[in-house]
């Protein structure tokens, strides 16, 4: 997932007041106010966030904002527990009868929010839906060709190609009711051509711990506990029974709402305000490392850079110049100044939460300006050169970009920081119309494969790794690296697979087609007032799983 946060800021939905929804909401308000049907422990969490998803469709958008909400409504075959380990969820067990098949036993007596039973038909249908060309969740079923119903509670996933980490992918595979989707003409994720709204974008029917009560895009989205949830007796379950998602785009307003007690939870407080929030005794901050890496990329493919004053050759193609850049970046200073301490410097593109991470590869070149200048001189640029660095205008990239420019200027690389709006930045990258850029990346699958094949595999290469080099906008290409990725993609033995990944990561450290900077630490701000004291757990994917939240 290339930087959900980048896209986050663009995703919103319209205001709408459906009369039936309103009526339900009013009714609910009356019912709760007179205390009928409301359990004694009923707790409401009001949650403010910069952006909410523009759609509730389980498969049409692969974005952090959408995942945050939908992961509470829809569920998959497997899930992650508190310690981020994969655990059985809607599937109770699985086997691999042969290399091309995964067989899942489904949990009995699971019901969708509309009361219909969950069966193998829904799984088969959801696979088909997730694989539809207009789905953005194809990665959730990577390698799967189709589903096959064996009986009502047994389903086979037929693989087009082997995927040793299929379970990591399936965590994000959301299952929707087949009859519901077909009845409401929502059998495909979205449809631009018919020029009408897809039903599933404002309605939902999952099996998850919360169900949709009210949806007024840009105003509020209310989810309430699913009283027939199969896992209600889980020891991990907290006590929140109603969540009001309130989008507040303006940062000061969002924090004002938290401090004044109008909301109890903010998942995206601006980093510069975190120290002030920590000083407030009514607020607490839960910090978590996010599995997201911020990194710089060079155009290593062109013979002459598009945005540089060096003519006739491409300085980035010289390894020494790339090393000089890595040496010149003071990542601790970026952490201190741009990130206000909320980052963990790293030397590798995947994180410790991802399968294949190796601490050997997590090594940065030392911050050493003298060495950097020497390297530039050896490469034939004693007086440096000029180049443009492209980045998005979102936080924290917009702060890091000028810092990097200043640091590289110290060794003579005259960097012009070009901070652009997101709708202009992404298309520019997609055209590979760049010489040097800053981006961040997270792998929704918590595995090295998706990251490596997207970021550094030869663009459009026809190796085993399909969808290859899609986000390789520097167009780096290395046959040895491609071969390693092709190998570990189909390697079933996890030990051998991890070793191959390690080799690939070490190769990247030697060749430096990208310079990783740091992993981000994400602060969640929440109320600590007695009565609305929120307890939350930060998972590395940054998704608040509300069923684990507690209010005391």
């Amino acid at each position, binding site marked *: 997932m290339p930087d959900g946060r980048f896209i986050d800021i663009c995703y919103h939905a319209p205001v709408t007041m459906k009369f039936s929804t309103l009526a339900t909401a009013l009714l609910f308000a009356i019912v709760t106010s007179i205390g009928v049907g409301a359990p004694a422990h009923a707790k409401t969490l009001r949650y403010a966030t910069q952006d909410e998803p523009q759609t509730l469709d389980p498969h049409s958008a692969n974005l952090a904002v959408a995942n945050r909400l939908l992961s509470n409504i829809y569920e998959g075959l497997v899930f992650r527990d508190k310690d981020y380990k994969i655990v059985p969820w809607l599937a109770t067990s699985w086997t691999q009868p042969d290399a091309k098949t995964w067989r899942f036993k489904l949990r009995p007596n699971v019901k969708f929010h509309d009361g219909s039973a969950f069966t193998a038909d829904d799984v088969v249908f959801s696979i088909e839906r997730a694989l539809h060309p207009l789905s953005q969740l194809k990665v959730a079923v990577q390698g799967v060709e189709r589903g096959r119903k064996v009986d009502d509670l047994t389903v086979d996933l037929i693989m087009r190609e082997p995927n040793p980490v299929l379970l990591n992918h399936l965590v994000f595979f959301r299952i929707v009711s087949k009859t519901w989707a077909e009845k409401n003409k929502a059998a495909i994720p979205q449809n631009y051509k018919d020029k009408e709204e897809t039903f599933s974008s404002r309605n939902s029917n999952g099996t998850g711990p919360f169900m949709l009560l009210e949806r007024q895009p840009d105003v509020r989205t209310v989810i309430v506990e699913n009283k027939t949830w199969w896992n209600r007796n889980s020891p991990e379950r907290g006590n929140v029974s109603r969540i009001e998602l309130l989008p507040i785009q*303006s940062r000061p307003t969002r924090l*004002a*709402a938290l401090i004044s007690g109008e909301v109890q939870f903010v998942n995206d407080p601006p980093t510069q305000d975190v120290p002030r929030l920590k000083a407030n005794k009514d607020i607490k901050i839960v910090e978590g490392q996010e599995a997201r890496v911020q990194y710089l990329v060079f155009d290593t493919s062109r013979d002459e850079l598009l945005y540089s004053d060096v003519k006739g050759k491409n300085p980035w193609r010289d390894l020494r110049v790339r090393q000089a850049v890595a040496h010149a970046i003071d990542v601790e200073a970026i952490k201190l100044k741009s990130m206000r301490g909320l980052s963990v410097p790293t030397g590798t593109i995947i994180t410790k939460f991802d399968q294949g991470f190796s601490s050997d590869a997590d090594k940065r070149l030392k911050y050493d300006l003298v060495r950097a200048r020497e390297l530039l001189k050896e490469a034939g640029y004693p007086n440096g050169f000029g180049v443009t660095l492209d980045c998005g205008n979102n936080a924290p990239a917009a702060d890091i970009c000028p810092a990097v420019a200043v640091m590289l200027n110290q060794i003579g690389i005259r960097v012009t920081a070009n901070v652009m709006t997101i709708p202009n930045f992404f298309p520019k990258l997609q055209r590979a119309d760049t010489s040097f850029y800053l981006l961040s990346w997270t792998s929704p699958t918590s595995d090295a494969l998706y990251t490596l094949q997207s970021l550094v595999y030869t663009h459009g290469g026809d190796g085993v790794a399909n969808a290859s080099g899609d986000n390789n906008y520097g167009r780096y290409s290395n046959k040895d690296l491609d071969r390693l990725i092709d190998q570990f993609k189909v390697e079933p033995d996890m030990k051998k697979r991890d070793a191959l990944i390690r080799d690939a990561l070490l190769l990247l450290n030697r060749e430096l087609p990208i310079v990783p900077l740091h992993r981000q630490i994400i602060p969640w701000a929440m109320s600590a007032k007695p009565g609305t004291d929120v307890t939350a757990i930060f998972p590395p994917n940054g998704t608040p799983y509300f069923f684990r939240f507690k209010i005391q």
Partner: protein
Amino acid sequence: MLAFIIQRLLQSILVMLTVGFIAFSLFNFVGDPVSLMLPPEATQADRDEVRKSLGLDQPFYVQFGTFLGNAVQGNFGISLRLGRPVSQLLVERLPATLELAMTAAVFGLLIGIPMGVYTALKRDKWTSKVLLTGSLVGVSLPNFLIGIFLILIFAVWLGWLPSFGRGETTAIGFWTTGFLTTEGLKAIILPAITLGFYPITLIMRLVRAEMLEVLRTDYIKFARARGLTNNAVHFGHALKNTLVPVITITGLQLGAIIAFAIITETVFQWPGMGLLFIQAVQFADIPVMAAYLCLIGFIFVVVNLVVDLLYFAVDPRLRVERSGSGGH
């Protein structure tokens, strides 16, 4: 009269065409929505396909032509960001913006006029000087800053008013109103003051200047000579005569308030058209931007037309001249 209205309406169509044309010629620079609509792993063929089905592969004048053709039939297309018809979105958002703008305008009049009268009558009092200096602040402070100050004082420190949103709304037909619930009424106060700050100061200064002017005229002196009470002179004669330009300016300001509610709506997460527009810009949602700009152009034109007609109503000389030139 009728000819005048028709002439002005024809002019307004020209204005909207111009607004639309300029807007479309700029849309090339706001970015490519397709890159945000499709997954990153989408192939170039996928992108081209969607671009084609949305008509984005056409040059801007062709897109503009298609837009006009559909707009004439009341179809503004479908929002790229939300996948819903744009006309429906605007109708849903319109009540929030209009209620906010009207409340701000009412604040402007109810607070601005008395303050203007006061500062004109008690021009040497220190309170007048404070108000005048304060009004300079109101004119020069940017909207969002005023909004943030108000939030800090009334939501964070005092905890009296909500810092965001529209509160609970009630639906009457297609119109949703926040005026019928306490929550809704509380929610509109801060944004309306923020949005009304500039009109308040403007009206106050205008009324003051006009009052000072009028108070010097002979008929006021005559009224005083007749022994009328101060109140009768000030409010019955002087104020009445200052209100003509005030009505005109308020009318014109109303258009500006609606159009510039964007910032206030963003600060207070007020779910109106301005917030919709800001988000459309971030997403390069061309149909929404086009429809919004045309709608705002239309509102300005209508407000100007009404103001022109008001001139007819209040100033008999205009009527006489027209009918005179027509008759001879």
